């Protein structure tokens, strides 16, 4: 499948070639196997984390949906699902609006202090989460935002904006602003020009930025550990206490559902990326 070996390749080169391929195959296995291994285990009929004899012989009795049933009937898990969506969607909306508007400014090379501003605005992505969480915990506690939905949403929005800024700015790289002027000189109002010229171009970036922001909030646990009270517990927070106390296979069922969500998001972002590249005339 990859560049074939040239016919003049020596013995050593051949051996190396196969070693290299085998090595890469092992790394790919290392990357993906741990994520896949939990999927069948989440259908285990027994409360164990290993493959039972029945599972290995594909005996239907070895499999069951009881852990999924557990998940869908547990009040605390369902509350965490609701919280996760409420928090992630709100944080995504805040991050996307603020991030997109800022990216429109940041994409212009004549913006004063551009590098410094960019550095500051994407700093939530670079500062280790434990430090952000500590700072937010101290500060939000002192202004009464700890253990509130508003506090968690603001924190997650701050963590999500860098992704929106980066993806939207990337779609604007190489954008020719004379197109906007051309539209305006042909009679378009600035708003009309924005929606007709800039908007179609940045939409893929906005959506994939929003998805990044969403998954950031949806998966985030360190800030939630510090800032959220019992009423704001999200899915990862519930998983955290589950793992710390007692890993029941219900956690594997939740994990499997989360993997399915990740796959859906990944596919969406990938399709958007290709569309964006096509729109900008770059080969995909």
């Amino acid at each position, binding site marked *: 499948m990859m560049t074939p070996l040239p016919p003049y390749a020596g013995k050593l080169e051949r051996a190396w070639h196969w070693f290299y391929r085998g090595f890469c195959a092992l790394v790919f296995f290392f990357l993906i196997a741990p994520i896949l291994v939990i999927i069948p285990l989440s259908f285990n009929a027994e409360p164990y984390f290993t493959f039972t004899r029945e599972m290995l012989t594909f005996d239907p009795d070895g499999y069951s949906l009881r852990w999924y049933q557990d998940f869908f009937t547990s009040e605390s898990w369902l509350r965490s699902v609701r919280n996760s969506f409420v928090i992630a969607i709100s944080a995504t909306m805040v991050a996307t609006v603020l991030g997109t508007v800022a990216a429109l400014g940041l994409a212009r090379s004549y913006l004063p202090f551009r590098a410094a501003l960019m550095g500051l605005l994407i700093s939530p992505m670079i500062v280790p989460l*434990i430090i952000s969480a*500590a700072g937010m915990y101290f500060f939000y506690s002192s202004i009464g935002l700890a253990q509130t939905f508003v506090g968690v949403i603001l924190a997650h929005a*701050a963590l999500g904006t860098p992704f929106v800024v980066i993806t939207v700015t990337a779609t604007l790289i190489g954008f020719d602003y004379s197109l906007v002027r051309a539209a305006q000189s042909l009679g378009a109002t600035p708003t009309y020009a924005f929606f007709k010229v800039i908007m179609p171009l940045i939409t893929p970036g906005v959506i994939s930025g929003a998805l990044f922001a969403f998954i950031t909030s949806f998966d985030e646990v360190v800030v939630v550990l510090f800032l959220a009270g019992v009423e704001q517990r999200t899915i990862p927070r519930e998983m955290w206490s589950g793992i710390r106390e007692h890993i029941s296979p219900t956690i594997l069922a939740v994990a499997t559902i989360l993997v399915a969500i990740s796959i859906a998001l990944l596919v969406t972002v990938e399709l958007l990326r290709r569309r964006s590249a096509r729109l900008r005339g770059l080969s995909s």
Partner: protein
Amino acid sequence: MTPAPDTAMVTADGLPLKLKLRQAERRKKLTAFLLVTPLLLFIIVTFVVPIFDMMRRSIDNPEIGEVLPRTTEALQAWDGRDLPPESVYAAFAADMVEGRENRTTGRVATRLNYEISGMRSAVNSTARRAARLEAPFKESLIETHARWGDPYTWQVIQRESGRFTASYYLSALDLRYDESGRITLQPEEQRIYLPLALRTFWLSGLVTVITLILGFPVAYMLATLPLRYSNLLMILVLLPFWTSLLVRTTSWIVILQSQGVFNDIVAFFFGEGARMQLMHNQIGTVIAMSHILLPFMILPLYSVMKTIPPGYMRAARSLGANPFTAFRRVYLPQTIPGIGAGALLVFILSIGYYITPALVGGRTGQLVGNLVAFHIQNSLNWGLAAALGTLLLGSVVILYFVYNRLIGIDNMKLG
């Protein structure tokens, strides 16, 4: 009237073109800046201020000055030798009576206990009896608790009565004041943070090297394969990247625990006795972190390798270089920006790790981040947590500048 010998061009409304252009330029800059302003304000309020608040907390020292104002003032005149004069004791007794009424002595008790063990009960038991103390206060206080008869107690109160303190940073760097007030290193068996910082850097370095060794060939393969294959394989890299951190950590617990998937396979082939301890130690932390951070290495490497024309290697070979020389001399140097970006990204992420070490790390797999969390939630020494956090942040900022120098933040690529 003769026209001025001015040859400057003028716009329709009579202003010089230069001025007009400058105005337009300024307006453009202003518009761009206004677009950025809302996010800028948002990030400052929700993120930057909290970080600065944490830094302030690492030197903030209000307890003694606020709760013991009279004592603080009276101690200013004391030379620090022998026991302080009666005026200090009288001031302290008065502060204690007031502090007891306002329920504020507990804060001083907690603060002083960080400096000298046993001060918590000394302060609290004294506060309970404060109203009954009688002059001469020196004698009655020493009778209440022997600590008040030790000059060292008063030296520490004097030292820590200022608005700011260095003592949290000293603790965070395993330093302390000795009996004569000089700063010295803690005895070796009592050092915590320096060995922990060393371990954090060592494990982060190890994870960086492992992800580089595993990630480089994979990135190379992805960059050189025809697109229809590489896109497919790319999913194997991106899926872990998009999967929840807790899901991946859970997987590793399921795999690594002594009754887990891996050990079951080992036991199946080699018997029950062959089960290995892979969790609750550094091995578990390193394996799980390498897996979690591997995509962060592969993606920047890939995006750099993608830009290297394959023709260079072929040219080197046709000029007689053997494949390894061609790779080493021609290809490798061009991947340096990718290696730098990937390595720094992985390293920065590693040194701030908290969740994975907390769940699979055990005793020997803990990192600095875990102690920050510990001091926030368990020991409640927030000043020390803030000092540790600030030091950690400092090292990240330094690394970040290196990163910016080498690669430039604009080149950050996602997925």
